[in-house]
């Protein structure tokens, strides 16, 4: 019963998605041109690299599904990470990590209240959050990286369960959880309903204010969690971490066919978007393309992917 729905979503994706086509084309191309690309080691490597963006994209996706946007997740990542990292020696890893996540949830809730309850424009709200929270991260660290982190904290970002890197397991678990929430809980249905038609949602008895607020809360919490993973992998928390994070996440979400106006699209598409972005970076590295050029190529690929989508959709009409 359950899997049936998602099969339909996936089938839709295969039929319609230009992004999936681009991903397949890229995988084929890289497998031919590079003999290291299609190896278990490299694939796991890609998955580990995308796991942070996957977590961020899930949060961003649910915000966008309600018709909102959140550009503050990079700043939330940075601030909660530097605070948590700096307290790990005194409070212990677990307490400091939990504190970091609560910071994320708290900032997210402030975003949510401003958008959901006060009815302010999400872009402007999260833009000002982004500026001030990023600023706080600098103030807190005086601009220096926090690198006095206990060594065993590295497990979160670099550890393995069996052969599987832990971040992959964590991000996939969150992905599955999010799928279930969106499809099989009233909260998930409400998210889609609000994005599709907010007035109708209110008139159907949905608590629009609370749902909207919660969505930003969750996004803040996920951003903080992603920040913790990133810090663990680098064994250093820099206040500049995640500068591009919201835009990578938004790119993945939009490439996955989730409409910026809300209410449309599934997380499966977003997953493909995340994988495409990760594969591009990996491929460009394998092909030894200079990192400055990589940015250029990434921008162009995102554009082409959504253009293909658009062309395919308009032909169907």
């Amino acid at each position, binding site marked *: *019963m*359950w899997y049936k*729905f998602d099969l*339909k979503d996936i089938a839709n994706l295969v039929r319609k998605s230009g992004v999936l086509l681009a991903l397949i084309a890229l995988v084929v191309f890289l497998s031919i041109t590079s003999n290291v690309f299609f190896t278990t080691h490299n694939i796991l490597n890609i998955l580990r690299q995308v796991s942070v963006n996957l977590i961020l994209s899930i949060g961003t996706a649910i915000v966008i599904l309600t018709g909102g946007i959140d550009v503050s997740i990079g700043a939330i990542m940075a601030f909660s990470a530097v605070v948590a990292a700096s307290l790990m020696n005194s409070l212990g890893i677990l307490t400091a990590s939990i504190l970091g996540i609560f910071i994320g949830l708290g900032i997210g809730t402030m975003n949510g209240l401003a958008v959901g309850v006060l009815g302010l424009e999400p872009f402007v709200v999260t833009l000002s959050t982004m500026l001030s929270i990023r600023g706080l991260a600098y103030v807190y660290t005086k601009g220096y990286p926090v690198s006095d982190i206990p060594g065993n904290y590295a497990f979160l970002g670099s550890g393995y369960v069996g052969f599987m890197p832990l971040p992959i397991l964590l991000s996939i678990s969150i992905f599955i959880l999010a799928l*279930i929430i969106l499809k*099989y*809980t*009233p909260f998930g*249905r409400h998210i*889609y*309903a609000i994005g*599709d*038609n907010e*007035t*109708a*949602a*209110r*008139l*159907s*008895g*949905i*608590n629009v204010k609370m749902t909207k607020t919660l969505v930003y809360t969750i996004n803040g919490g996920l951003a903080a969690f992603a920040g913790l993973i990133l810090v663990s992998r680098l064994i250093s928390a820099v206040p500049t971490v995640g500068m591009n994070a919201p835009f990578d996440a938004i790119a993945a979400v939009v490439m996955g066919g989730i409409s910026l106006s809300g*209410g*449309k699209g599934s997380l499966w598409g977003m997953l493909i978007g995340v994988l495409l972005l990760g594969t591009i970076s990996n491929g460009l590295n394998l092909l030894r393309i200079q990192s400055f050029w990589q940015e250029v190529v990434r921008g162009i690929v995102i554009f082409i992917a959504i253009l293909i989508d658009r062309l395919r959709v308009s032909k169907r009409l």
Partner: protein
Amino acid sequence: MIFEVRNVSKRFPGVQALDSVNFVLKKGTIHALVGENGAGKTTFVNIISGIIRPDKGDIYLKGKKVRVNTPAQARMLGISLVPQILNLCQDMTVAENIYMGQEQKFMHKGLIDWKSINISANRLLKDELGVDIDVTKKVMGLTVAEQQFVEIAKALSFESSVLILDEPTATLTEPEKERLFKVLRKLVDKEKAIIYISHRLDEVFEIADIYMVLRNGRVVGTGSVSDITKEKLVTMIVGETVKTLSRKSLVQKPNKKCVLEMRNVSFDGVRDLSFCLREGEILGIAGLIGSGKSVVAHLLFGINTPDTGQIKIMGEPVVLSSPNNAMRLGIGFVPADRLHQAMFLHRSVLENITIANLKRFKRFGLIKVGKEKEKAHEVSQRLEIKMSSIREDVMYLSGGNQQKVSIARWISRTPRIIILEEPTQGIDVKAKAQVREIMLSLQEQGISVIAISSDVDEIISVCDRVIVMFDGRITSILEGGEVIKDLVSRAELGRYKNVV
């Protein structure tokens, strides 16, 4: 003959939308185009106004074959569409809207001469249409009818000889409609040709000269309106006999107790409302736009809270502070503006039906999809919702079926009271009859119904009692045999007070 369409066909994936349609339009006539939703009316109109291209067929204007590939081309040829959903820029003035895109005609030394635009717009409205609207006013402040006149004036500004009106009266009240018809007659006098699309057959007989009926993309009948009866026309449209539209149900149930009661309620221009909804009755609320009849619905569904006065449900005073709160007290609300206030267009029929009722299917925090689907199936079968599957997005359903989905949402909760606002607005004849049947069947189940409507026929055919509102007050409450059309219309205008 000014305009002719020969053998036009159009196919969409899975459906033959138009099949060899021939159509002839004469100067100075009004040609009514009727048919159920999905009969091909919109496709036909879209083809002749250049929005879509036909697969086959030709269009002739004044005897010459023409190509109509874009709306701009259609306009250049003198074919203008006044769309059902008006597309005026609300923040701009009437004159600016009328001459939008034609400003170059009014250039003076490289700048736009607004004064002459205003004069020109005023002349169009006054002389051509005979209506008096301040052209320097923003469109925002105009009534729907006035906005329609602006759209018509805009069409005329392109020297159009063929005007297409798509459901122009859908949101108009009786007097506004009369005003529109006056304008249309004036246009006919000026030798314009008008294609008039409407679901309201009374109007066809009132205003049109020629009718054409489309069914499943084919012309099933055309001729002079004076040669046909309403019953014959209905049969042509639906292709099968429907149950008679007006069932006089006017049963009096004076002894039943009040399920819901408003006592001296005032809010924002609505003053001193007192009435009682009796158990198991269908109570109509009639009135003009702005009479306050929709405010009543908003107050009862917790969208607004009264400034003063009391609302009682089953004798208990209640505070209806939000829709959610009203729902818990057993009230359901089917709003008039289906698209903006009820439908989740990109969600499935299933999700649209159960969205207000998800708690019932929840176990351990998760929705039990099997149970949910079962319920949605049951309700959609009961209401005869036509769809290819319950997972179909609601946007692909016809207006009538969307309206049924909107009603199904509340039925699935088994409420005590259902408020329907303009329940059959903008849906086809057959769906109208079905929605009325649904209202009567709700009554049979003991659900009390409030029907707010500007359609007097509708009120008469389904309601047991009718509240008439004018200018924020209840002017009369009509009961039983008193509910006759004339009385309602006159009471609507506020001439009749305290009829009971």
